[in-house]
């Protein structure tokens, strides 16, 4: 496929991997890929198999499905169950368990839950069903927030009365800061999220290099993008210059996408704080709909329980999200918690670290085991 195959070239990948081996000289490096899309690429293409062992990739909290706390899923389910409602969502959210089951379960029990590809489709459904309340379950980082914003603006322009958004958009920067401040973890750098940066630009990452002395390379989503980003991170160590670099120049502009930022600011504002699954409450880490748009805010229109629900005791999603443990080190990984019967949300989305390990990682685990066995002997 044009413009994709070029970024999946095996020979180039191996050449860069050799360079990584040469530069890193056996020294251990821990890099976090913040974005779930990167985690998915890493597993889908088996990138860890071609990297030297001293480079460890930590799969960060950048999967919007994984970080949504159970209480918010319960709220979504409460809205979906409301008589006369059509609840629309991206496919990923259907199977995420709340405290009393998932959206797929309430759909089976009779609720009208539909999965869509764009929030504008939800607006279309609202136009076609004027007697129903149509709600869009908005999730995602700054990548998807602009399309929700445009939908809100359009709903206001057309004065569509039976449409609202259940807003769960989150922001990446406060979360990276929370991870950097967490005493659990030592990281040597970040593979920065490409699509988020396409919207927010590069400036907001400067504090990571300046205040925490950690290199950041904003990366694309193809295998060669990620391998090159790792190489760029290592080169910063080699030259001793810690900065924010942009590997994904074909998409990300330093200033971001001003139009997107403008529509977001018009329709949404920062919440004082928001709960992240496994990470707890983080200040200014999520967006809510502005009061001028209250009419289209599902949290204003519907009675939601709004309860905080503790994760199941056995679930260690939080530690996995922070990179403190590897998915397979969780007590329920692969036994009680599988993609078919997920306990933690990291097992649900294909971008979740646990699902990625379960689906794609078993072989590398087996070879990891052999390596460890050799060292034990």
């Amino acid at each position: 496929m044009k413009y994709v195959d070029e970024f999946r070239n095996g020979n180039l990948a191996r050449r860069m991997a050799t360079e990584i081996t040469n530069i890193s000289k056996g020294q251990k490096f821990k890099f976090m890929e913040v974005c779930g899309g990167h985690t998915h690429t890493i597993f889908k293409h088996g990138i860890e198999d071609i990297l030297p062992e001293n480079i460890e990739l930590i799969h960060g909290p950048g999967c919007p499905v994984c970080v949504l706390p159970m209480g918010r899923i319960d709220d979504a389910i409460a809205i979906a169950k409301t008589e006369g409602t059509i609840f629309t969502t991206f496919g990923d959210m259907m199977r995420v368990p709340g405290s009393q089951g998932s959206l797929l379960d309430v759909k089976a029990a009779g609720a009208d839950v539909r999965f869509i590809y764009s929030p504008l489709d939800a607006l279309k459904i609202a136009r076609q069903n004027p007697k129903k309340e149509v709600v869009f379950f908005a999730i995602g980082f700054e990548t998807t927030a602009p399309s929700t914003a445009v939908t809100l603006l359009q709903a206001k322009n057309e004065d569509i009365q039976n449409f609202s958004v259940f807003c769960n958009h989150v922001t990446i920067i406060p979360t990276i800061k929370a991870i950097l401040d967490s005493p659990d973890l030592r990281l040597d750098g970040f593979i920065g999220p490409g699509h988020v940066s396409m919207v927010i630009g590069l400036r907001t990452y400067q504090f990571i290099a300046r205040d925490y002395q950690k290199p950041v390379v904003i990366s694309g989503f193809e295998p060669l993008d990620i391998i090159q980003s790792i190489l760029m991170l290592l080169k910063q160590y080699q030259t001793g210059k810690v900065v924010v670099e942009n590997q994904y120049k074909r998409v990300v502009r330093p200033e971001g996408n001003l139009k997107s930022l403008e529509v977001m600011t018009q329709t949404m504002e920062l919440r004082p704080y928001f709960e992240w699954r496994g990470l707890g409450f983080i200040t200014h880490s999520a967006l809510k709909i502005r009061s001028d748009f209250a009419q289209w805010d599902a949290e204003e229109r519907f009675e939601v329980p709004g309860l905080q629900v503790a994760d199941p005791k056995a679930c260690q999603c939080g530690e996995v999200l922070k990179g403190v443990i590897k998915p397979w080190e969780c007590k329920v990984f692969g036994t009680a918690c599988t993609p078919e019967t997920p306990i933690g949300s990291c097992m649900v989305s294909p971008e979740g670290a646990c699902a990625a390990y379960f689906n794609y990682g078993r072989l590398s685990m087996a070879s990891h085991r052999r390596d460890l066995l050799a060292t034990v002997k």
Partner: protein
Amino acid sequence: MTEKFQTLDKALENLEKSRQARKGKFYLKDKTITLSHGSGGTASHNLIGGMIGKIFSNPILDKMDDSAILPINGSDTRLAFTTDSYVVSPIFFPGGNIGEIAVNGTVNDLAVSGADPLWISVGLILEEGFSIAELKKIIESMQAAAEKAGVHIVTGDTKVVHRGSADKIFINTAGIGIFQDQISLSSLNAEPGDKVLLSGPIGDHGIAVMLAREALDFETDIQSDTAPLNGLIHALLDATKAVHCLKDATRGGVATVLNEIALNSNVAIAIEEGSVPIRPEVNGACEILGLDPLTIANEGRFIAIVASEDAETAVRALQNHPQGSEACIIGEVLEEPEGMVFLRTALGGHRVLDMLVGDPLPRIC
């Protein structure tokens, strides 16, 4: 280090356990039917293996292959018998319609068991208010598909339900075929060393249907691959006696079929990612929608497991047939890890290729 090793060891052991559990014992924990149970992937396997198949259990059914193999008392003749229901939406899509896949699907289930398909039954469930003109179009294309496959539609049934109790039209077909010789094809028969053959590019049907749905405003030329496979399979079986297993890669796609073979034969299957034929348009649509072409449904493609020494002959036989020009070898059967399918990525890494868990898009056939 030792502690870490123990944890990893335990994790692998647990994974192994859950894989083993999936193999023979199926657990149906759900209280209600959700769309996942119809996906052809793991949830369907749990429903069928954990409840339906258990209650109906008998030696013929328990083989759980595409067709039941029926011995006829006192003769060497064996019959193949199969049934399938079709609920695809939309009922008309680029390259075919619900009627065509209803005939071809049943023909193919018989053909992959090694039998010559002969007779088909048709059960129609129609929704009140459905257009007779559209019904006629479907019926005519069923007859055309039957003629093309060389089968006869010999019995049938028609029911009408209240508006809303069905979606326009649902079709059930059943079929009978006869085995010409003592051939035995089964997903139990794959052996280490065998080659994995694929009859053509994958994902066309699933993507064609998906793009025909109004929610996606894509314009492409992708057509469903629906076709009767009995002619192509005949050409293959005439060329070599070393075919161990045939399976048509419908719901759940190539990934699900390969997993079934690996589990049933207690072997591993390694696929070369770069050698799997996928049309650029299909690949592009999959990239945009976040789908894996290997899990997308096909209606005219099959996987053949063939002994290594005859693999080239088999590929040539397929390629010489008009329907098999793009057939190729995509991988091989290995001894271990048992029951696992993995992909050697174009990049030089590996990943496990699992069965589909939830259907990305229900009602594809």
